[in-house]
């Protein structure tokens, strides 16, 4: 099962999740990475769940049309939308303390 390492506000949180897990769904049902992961719409529109992938990016599918539209150049800096990702391998993510406008 994938291990999620989540950085935010100078803290590191780590836990195991089921295979093929969406972290926004997890947070929505109040399980890790709740309450640390910020998210809102769950539909790739608001970008509040954007995270920088520090490790494990090679296991993710290429960004989809919503990520391309919402993140633009931030994709090059390693950002992805957590609501659009179904995690199947270990991954290390960092979320900025405030969401980008």
């Amino acid at each position: 099962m994938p291990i999620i390492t989540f950085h935010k506000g100078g803290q590191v949180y780590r836990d195991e999740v089921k295979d093929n897990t969406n972290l926004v769904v997890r947070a929505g049902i109040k399980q890790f990475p709740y309450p640390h992961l910020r998210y809102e719409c769950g539909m790739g529109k608001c970008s509040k769940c954007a995270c920088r992938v520090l490790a494990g990016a090679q296991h993710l599918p290429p960004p989809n049309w919503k990520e391309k539209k919402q993140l633009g150049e931030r994709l090059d800096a390693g950002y992805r939308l957590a609501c659009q990702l179904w995690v199947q391998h270990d991954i290390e993510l960092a979320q900025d303390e405030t969401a980008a406008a």
Partner: protein
Amino acid sequence: MSALMNRDEFRTALEDAIKGKSANKSPFSLAWAGGTLSRAHLARWAENHYHYVGPFADYLGYLYARMPDRYTEAKDFLLANMYEEEIGGDRHTDLLIRFAEACGTTRERVIDPDNMSPTTRGLQSWCYAVAMREDPIVAVAGLVVGLESQVPSIYRKQTPTLREKYGFSDEEVEFFDLHIVSDEIHGERGYQIVLEHANTVELQQRCLKICEIGAQMRLLYTTALYHDYVVTEEAAQPVLEAA
């Protein structure tokens, strides 16, 4: 006489109650997954589906008003669910209409209640009746666990087909994509509410029964779509050809 189940036993029983009647088994769903429907069939689906899911926030609104105020988490969940359906991002029904238009129908046809089948009207009426009359926890079991929680598994099968076999674009199928995430959350939180508050044998049994009926209603609705729009058309074909 049934005994009071613990959370794990009750969860399994709820899942089993739904599983036997999953709408994935309806002929319309199977034809959809097999790529054998036409865009016109999908347009008829959208015209019907709008009248089932369009009032979902209304169903939950009635339920919200009747949910005891001591169940704060359950009330907050219902409110959040309504907000997400309507104004959290794009209005979900607008995304359904976008898909409908890609299938060749119009917004006017979709929102016109005269274009839903009698069976769809039956499903919509059942949802209103459950929201207005059932014990609030039993109603959550029926509407959220029985109906909404089925959606991700249905759309996980149907959405790739829409892209690969029917040739729809990403934007056109956004309605389906978003529900794979949103209804996974809604369904799971519905489970949590029911598992926590259905704390008597009688309530547990009523929740199980309504989940079964909810799943049955959705199966009935999708099966009727097949008979009303696919079989009817096939039956009419030899007559049309002979004419």
